C-alpha cells in the first residue's frame, strides 16, 4: 500500500466537502477518482498534497503518517501533482519549468555560488521528461505562450519531474479540444505503464482504459471502489453518476 487515508474529512463551514474517506492505493496501480462536480475530488487531492489541512482523519504515505505536513514537504518525500487549472512558471521557458521542478530532488538546488547551468543532472532529467511527454520541441518557448494543450502537457511534466513515487493528476484533459484529448489519453496510457498514479478525470473513455481501480465519490463520500468492471455493474453508481454513460 503506497497511500492510505483514514476517515479523511474536510469541513468548510456547514459543508462537508470530504466525508470520512478511506482510500487505499496499491503500488504500481492507476487509481481513478470519479464523481460529479462538487463531489469533493479536488478537495481530497488538496488534502493529500498538504495544500489544505484536513479537519479530521489521517493520510499515510509509504507507511508514514504525513498528515499535517506542508505541501513542499510532501512534494519532497515523493508525491508529485498536477493542477486542474494550469499552474506554470509562465515567464520561464518550458525546459526551465521542468528543470526547476527536477532540481529539488537532486543536489545543489540551494547553492548560490555556481551558475545553475553547471548542474547538468537536472537539465538532463528535464530533457528526458519533456521527451517522454513529447514536448521537447517546445523546450525554448515561454510556458505562458504555449497552446492550452501544450500547457496541460507541461502541467503533467511538472508532476513527473522530480521522479516521485506517486503522481496525482487533477483532470489532465480539462478544457482540451477533442484532438488534444486524444493525444493526452494516449500520453497518460503510456506514462501509466510504469508508475503509480491517482487520477481525477471526467473523461470516461480515459478512466475506463487506464484504471486498475476506480473510486466513486458522491457528496464527499465514497460510494463504491472496485475494478472498472465492478464499477460498471454497480447499481448505486449507475444511478448516482454514470446514468446512461457507461455501456
Amino acid at each position, binding site marked *: 500500500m503506497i497511500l492510505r487515508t483514514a476517515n479523511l474529512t474536510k469541513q468548510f463551514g456547514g459543508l462537508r466537502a470530504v466525508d470520512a474517506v478511506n482510500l487505499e492505493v496499491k503500488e504500481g496501480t492507476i487509481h481513478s477518482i470519479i464523481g460529479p462536480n462538487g463531489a469533493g475530488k479536488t478537495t481530497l487531492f488538496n488534502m493529500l498534497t498538504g495544500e489544505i489541512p484536513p479537519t479530521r482523519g489521517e493520510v499515510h504515505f509509504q507507511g508514514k503518517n504525513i498528515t499535517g505536513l506542508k505541501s513542499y514537504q510532501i*512534494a519532497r518525500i515523493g508525491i508529485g501533482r498536477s*493542477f486542474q487549472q494550469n499552474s506554470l512558471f*509562465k*515567464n*520561464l*521557458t518550458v*525546459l526551465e519549468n521542468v528543470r526547476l521542478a527536477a532540481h529539488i530532488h537532486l543536489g545543489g538546488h540551494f547553492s548560490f555560488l555556481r*551558475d545553475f*547551468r553547471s548542474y547538468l543532472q537536472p537539465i538532463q532529467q528535464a530533457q528526458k521528461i519533456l521527451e517522454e511527454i513529447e514536448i521537447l520541441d517546445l*523546450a525554448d518557448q515561454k510556458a505562458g505562450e504555449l497552446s492550452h494543450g501544450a500547457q496541460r502537457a507541461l502541467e503533467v511534466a511538472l508532476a513527473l519531474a522530480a521522479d516521485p513515487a506517486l503522481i496525482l493528476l487533477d483532470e489532465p484533459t480539462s478544457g482540451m479540444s477533442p484532438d488534444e484529448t486524444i493525444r493526452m489519453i494516449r500520453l497518460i496510457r503510456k506514462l501509466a505503464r510504469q508508475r503509480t498514479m491517482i487520477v481525477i478525470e471526467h473523461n470516461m473513455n480515459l478512466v475506463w482504459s487506464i484504471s486498475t481501480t476506480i473510486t466513486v465519490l458522491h457528496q464527499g463520500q465514497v460510494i463504491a471502489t472496485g475494478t472498472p468492471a465492478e464499477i460498471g455493474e454497480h447499481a448505486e453508481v449507475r444511478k448516482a453518476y454514470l446514468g446512461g454513460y457507461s455501456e
Partner: protein
Amino acid sequence: MVEKALGKKKPLVDKEILLFAGLLLLLPFVLPFKSLPAEILIYGLGAVSFNILLGYTGLLSFGQAAFFGGGAYLTGILLIHLGWHPGIILILSGLIGAVFAAIIGYLSIQQVGIYFVMLTLAFNQLAFFLAYQWKSVTGGDDGLMNVPRPDFSILPGLKIPIQSNTEFFLFVWVIFVVSFVLIRRVIHSPFGRILLAIRDNPNRSRAVGYNITLYKLVAFVISGFFTGLAGGLFALFMKMVPITAIELLTSTDFIVMTLLGGTGSLYGPVIGAIVTKIASEILSELWARWLFILGVIFVAFVLFMRGGIWGLGVASWNKWKKGQKEALS
C-alpha cells in the same frame, strides 16, 4: 537546444562585466559634479540589492532604508568610538544590514501582498524612530557628526588613500564591482532561479517542493547585506550620518531608481541611480520644486514603460537588429 532555452553559462567575470565596470569608471570624467560619481555607485549598490527582492523575488520592500541606515550608523559609530580598520567596519556594516533584514524579512514574509508591503514600511518607520530617539548614540535629528574617513591600510606601511573625490570614487568602484559580480552570480545560481520561480508562481514553487518562506528570507538577508554595505560606504562618503539615511524616503529612492531603470536586469537599477542622481543635481539648480519633474517622469515610466530605461533600450536594440536582418535578406 539547451542553450537556447536556458541561455549561456556565465563565468564569474566576462566581457559584459568588464565593459560595464569600464563604463562606470568613466563617470568622474564625464560628470562635472565632483562628488557625485561615488554617490551614484553607493545608491546604485543599494538599488541593485533592492532589485534582488523586487525584480527577482517579487517582493516590494519598503524596509531597505533600515538596512542602509543600520550599516551607515554602525560604520559611523565604530569609526568615531573605536577607530577600527574601515575594511572590517564595512564588512560589519554589511552584516548588520543582513541581521536587520533577517529580522524585518522574517516578520514581514509571514504575510503576502499589500500586508507584506505595509509591514516592511512599518518596520522601517520603527527603525527611523529608534534612530531619532536614541540621540546619545545616533545624534538624533542632527545626524551623527564628525565621522572620520581614515586611509585604507593593506599592509603595515602600505596605505591606500581615500581622501580626495577621485581616490574615494575608485575605492567605492572596487567595492561596487566586486559586489555586483557576487550579486550577479547569486542571480544566476540555482538559488537565484528559484527566486525567479517564486516571483512567477509561488504556489507552484511550493507544490514542486520549495520552501518559499526560507528562500524569501535568504533573499532578504543577501539584499540586506549589500544594502548595509552601501550604507557603510555612505557614512564614509558623507563623513557623517544624516537621519535621512534611515528615513522611509531613502527606501523610496531605491524603489524609484529601480523602477525607472528597469527591474528586469541588474543593470537597470544602476542606470536608474545614475539618471535620478544626475537629474536631481541638474534640476535642483533650475527649480526648487524639481522633485515634481522627477515624479512626473517616474509616473510616465511606471504607466507606459514597465521595463524601465533598460527594458526600453533592450527592446529598441532588438528592433534595430531585426530591421538589420530584414534589410539583409
